[in-house]
């Protein structure tokens, strides 16, 4: 399995990458880790005439904290996220999510920015980013803009990025200490996409839910935010009855497509079950963090 012919470009700077993207337009694709794009090119689902490799641009890599914001270069690999002491301490939801992506070899190459921009409904970072209230820095020929994760995903493989834009950074407001988190993912085996997954980031105050975000992976064409489920639990004590109600509300927004992982009914039920598990675990973690 060999891809169609293409010209390969390896720009050393971001302006050079943007210039190439502007020059070649729809004929070009950006190459990040390549573990979604190259398989698609081998299967001839993608046939770019120009491949622009972002792998040599140093400023697109790295993880740091700037004020209360965690700043992650778009070309940072999944293993770099998993091994980051800063993220383990300040943003464990992202680490827990990255640990459940594909397999070790893929995580050396696969990048957080690539996972987001590819916008496969099965990719995990889109829902994680919505749960964390992240925003994305996009740079194009006309300058830079910052957009929220929520609203960025328009459909299957479709985002609000313009054709000449490169994602440069992911910015995450560091969750306050005492927060609880969980990414509950059901997959058939290592390397598979989620049959269903649920991301929860929450904070308790006097045993009641103060802040909460609940998002879902692979439960529709885009990652979904279960706002009705969030509203149902906010301000309340998160007991088993309320968690079941939240899961029911989350299932109400699911419209997964049937595939070899199951039919729509099964995947919706599993999205509910993952929401139950993610909410329970996040609550327990928040409670023990408060102690």
């Amino acid at each position, binding site marked *: *399995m*060999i*891809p*169609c*012919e*293409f*010209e*390969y470009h*390896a720009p050393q700077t971001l302006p050079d990458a943007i210039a190439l993207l502007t020059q070649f337009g729809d004929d070009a694709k950006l*190459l990040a880790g*390549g*573990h979604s794009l*190259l*398989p698609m*090119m*081998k299967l001839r689902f993608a046939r770019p005439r120009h*491949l622009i*490799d972002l*792998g040599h641009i140093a400023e697109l890599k790295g993880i740091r904290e700037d004020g209360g914001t965690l700043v992650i270069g778009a070309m940072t690999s999944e*293993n770099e996220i998993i091994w980051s002491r800063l993220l383990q301490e300040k943003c464990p939801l992202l680490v827990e999510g990255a640990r459940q992506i*594909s*397999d*070790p*070899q*893929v995580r*050396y*190459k696969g990048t957080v920015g690539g996972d987001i921009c590819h916008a496969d409904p099965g990719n995990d970072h889109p829902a994680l980013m919505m749960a964390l209230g992240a925003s994305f820095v996009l740079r194009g020929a006309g300058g830079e803009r910052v957009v929220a994760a929520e609203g960025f995903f328009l459909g299957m493989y479709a985002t609000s990025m313009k054709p000449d834009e490169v994602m440069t950074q992911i910015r995450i407001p560091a969750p306050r200490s005492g927060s609880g988190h969980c990414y509950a993912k059901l997959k058939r085996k*290592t*390397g598979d996409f989620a049959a269903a997954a649920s991301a929860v980031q929450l904070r308790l105050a006097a045993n009641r839910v103060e802040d909460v975000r609940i998002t879902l992976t692979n439960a529709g064409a885009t990652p979904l935010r279960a706002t009705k489920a969030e509203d149902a639990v906010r301000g309340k004590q998160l007991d088993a009855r309320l968690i079941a109600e939240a899961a029911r509300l989350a299932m109400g927004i699911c419209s997964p497509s049937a595939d070899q992982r199951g039919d729509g009914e099964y995947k919706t039920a599993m999205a509910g079950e993952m929401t139950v598990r993610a909410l329970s675990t996040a609550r327990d973690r928040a409670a023990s963090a408060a102690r």
Partner: protein
Amino acid sequence: MAKKQAVSFKLNGKEVDVLVEPRELLIHTLREKLQHTGPHIGCETSHCGACTVDLNGMSVKSCTVLTVQCQGAQLLTIEGLAQGGVLHALQEAFHLDHALQCGYCTPGMITRAYRLLKENPNPSEEEIRYWMAGNLCRCTGYQNIVKAVRSAAMKLSAQAAA
């Protein structure tokens, strides 16, 4: 045809130069142009790990890397593990612990385990299973592979302490 490109990298410590089409996959360059047939082609879809090589300190599936991405890289394959005719501790452990049957997955397994032990010299069984999950074996049931990685880790630690 897209113009061929010259790519230079270090393969098991030796400088090599190849002329490749941009679409050529690293596994094909290694096997067909450089006669390094240790890394195998299993699935060609980045699932099985038989083609695993070490690229700049990362375990990668060479069926999902373009050779042109390797300009200036340091590459290590199973061929580069034995030194001066002496097997690497992992190769020896795979032999002693019967960690292979047909052997098809073995070069990828050992190359992956090599990087794992560089990163974590004393992994638990659970850590070995998690960090070796990108390599499939259809014969052994993995028990002896895990055992071999553990025993190689102990041997390498003892050597390092001596």
